[in-house]
């Protein structure tokens, strides 16, 4: 299981981090969850720079990206990832409290893979996270990354 790709959660709100982790936990996904607290941190993680220089781990199997983030916001992170030929293969799920149509349209324009408006009810959130996690981390064969997969799920 050591080569299981991590899930990257980019979220600034501690409550949301805890609830999302609980939901992932409920989904019984074995993937490690890396957490970044702002957009700049997330980009450092992906580019293995700053605090993450020399990071050995694989690229994430999916990035759960909050829209509203300090420093560099979610749409900017999305734009950076999707415009990088090496990173663009990483599936991005926008997790957001926003129902603003403009955010949604913009996200799709930037090439988001899924867009989840965090439901008020926790049960619904749980379902959404589980479905997403299972789809991207487990069921979906992620496109080949920079490091060859050594198989196993």
């Amino acid at each position: 299981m050591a080569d299981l790709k991590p899930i990257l959660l980019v979220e600034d709100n501690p409550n949301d981090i805890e609830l999302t982790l609980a939901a992932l936990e409920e989904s019984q996904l074995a993937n490690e969850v890396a957490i970044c607290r702002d957009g700049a941190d997330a980009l450092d993680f992906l580019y293995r720079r700053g605090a993450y220089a020399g990071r050995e781990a694989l690229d994430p199997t999916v990035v759960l990206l909050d829209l509203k983030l300090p420093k560099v916001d979610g749409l900017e992170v999305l734009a950076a990832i999707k415009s990088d030929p090496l990173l663009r293969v990483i599936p991005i799920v926008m997790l957001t409290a926003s129902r603003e149509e403009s955010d949604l349209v913009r996200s799709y324009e930037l090439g988001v893979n899924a867009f989840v408006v965090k439901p008020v009810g926790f049960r619904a959130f749980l379902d959404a996270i589980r479905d997403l996690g299972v789809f991207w981390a487990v069921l979906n064969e992620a496109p080949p990354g920079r490091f060859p997969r050594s198989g196993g799920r």
Partner: protein
Amino acid sequence: MSSAARSHEAAELTACDREPIHRLGTLQPHGFLLALQGPERRIVQASANVPAGPDGVLGRRLEAVFPEIAAALAEAPAEASAGVGARHLRSLTLGAGSGGLSDARAYDLAVHRSGDLTLVEMEEAAPAGPAGGLDALSSRLDAFVEGLHAAPSVADLCHLLAVEIRHATGFDRALVYRFDRDWHGTVVAEDGNGVLPSYLDLRFPASDIPAQARELYRRNRLRIIPDAGYEPVPIVPPLTPDTEAPLDLSQSVLRSVSPVHVAYMRNMGTQASMSVSILVDGALWGLISCHNQAPRRVPLPARNACDFLTRIFALQLAARERGAEAEQRLRLGAIAQRLLGAMAETEDFHDGLLARPDDLLALADAGGAAIVTAGTCRLVGRTPPDDAVRGLYRWLSAAHGGEDVYATEALAEAHPPATACAETASGLLAIAVSQRSATYVLWFRPEAVRTVKWGGNPAKPAIADPAGGPARLHPRTSFETWKETVKGRAQPWSLPEIDAAKDLRAAILGIVLRRAEEMAALSEELQRSNKELEAFSYSVSHDLRAPFRHIVGYAELLRAREGANLSEKGRHYLDTVVEAAFAAGTLVDNLLAFSQMGRNALKPIDIAMNLIVEEVRRKVMRDVAPDRTVHWRIGPLGRVRADPMMLRLAVENLLSNALKYTRGAPEAVIEVVREPDRDGEATFRVRDNGVGFDMAYVGKLFGVFQRLHRTEEFEGTGIGLANVRRIVERHGGRVSAVGELGRGATFRFTLPLCA
């Protein structure tokens, strides 16, 4: 219209215009003329009827032939013969023997300059008339002046003058004749003894009194023809020896008149006539025209009295006309004020003007009016048909686009297609209200010939001219000629009327401009508040929603993971926390949806309504308890043009409402039908047999957060029907509801049918 504004070029020159009336070189026979040259007053020309005969006087000094005349001239002040027009010096009796007279004869002596010559005219004195001279008139004069002051109108003034002149002269009939701007004439007042026919209100074309005749009338205020059957008396020699030119007799009192005029008089059945010019501010305003069936002489004092009366009249007239104009301006100002008030009360100035149709017409004394834009044409009063008015609008925009005001009394001359609507629109007064959106306010005047009053009897057959004169030289043929001349012409627009239209234009522009500014300010404010609302919504969607999510999330985690450690009561509390936070979060979601509804642009497409209703029906049925019985009755709903997302939301709200409020019914019946289309709208009806509502609260039904039921009875945030109304109204439709407690509710909404 002030006399000064009259166009002197208006009348075209006719053959009669070119006739050199003042150089005809003949005199009427009721007196004789001497032309004197130099300080020694040598007689160089004389009329053929001079008592001693021309041969006896020519070349001689005046003193030698007529010592009485020479003495009278010597007594006269120097300026007597210097001014314009013949000046009557005095009555003079020439003794027997003087100038070859066989017996003494009384004359009225008049003198004036003509070039280098002094012209002396000796008019045979007439026996004193019925009214005598100024002295005899003085008591009547007082009454006349009083009457002029008291006369309520210009027409009354004119009538007073006609009465007084006829009294002073003893003529059978006295007419007051007024020129209009184009020098056509109208008989505006008349006094007569019945011997001659009435000509009141008769019209004469400008050609009847041609341009140079009018100029003579202006320069020489009083003319008299005692006997139209006279034999003209030549001047001997016809040419002045020094200049080889005929004598200029334009100032002469004895001057012969045009043969055309004599024929005209005969055709009118009159032998004697007198005319007095009415000058206002130096311009010819009109004439007093007196006629007698039989030849008639008017003594000089009576003529002087007439001149005097006329000048008093003219002074009063000038004041009165200025007053009348001021009064008209005041009256029009008051009308304009009322129109302004009406415009201020309406959103669209068109509606304001049309709300007071009588005032709109009265402002320009018009028969009809129209307010025309590129797309609309609204008519008031007697106007050409709609398409003709639109045609006028296009012509005005193209040919007079840059002009603020356009006025014509002969529209067909400027715009030949208007010939067809001469009856209603011979006169057009137009104001261009706005260049950009091109709105015109138009006033129409009918053809003048249709508005003419006729005081005489136009049907009376013309009496053939016994002398075989041209048939047209008769007042009634004049009237016919005038009718031809003014065909397609309306009464001219007066300056105050044109000014009133200009003022109205300025006022409308002011209103439109102010309104535009207000709208601009409002829309700026709206945009700002819209932006603020957007920012607020965004903030609410992120920041307000999150805590509710967290509360629900943690509470559910607590229940799932620690529930076993809680008491029954504890779990109940937890459930309540979850429910309450969930409700609050849902409320925020609904609010956001509602605000987006108002902000997002509509993207209407053609929609099969049955598809939408069926989809929604299936969706809402998913949440219905399996033990409920629901009968759906969905009719053919056709197609509409609408934004599909929004329409779906509206339908969903209506159908889920219907399901919700039929929950208690043993068998719910929900009907969705399309009523017959009406007034360009499709009407849809959603009816249920649920709990209904009290019509007393129908006004609250579609309000935001208005609920008619307690939350325990029926859950909800009170925003569903507000959404329905917002969606429908944004599509240009309307919503309505009828219901009765316990007997179901019926909702209707309409959507405009698009062409």
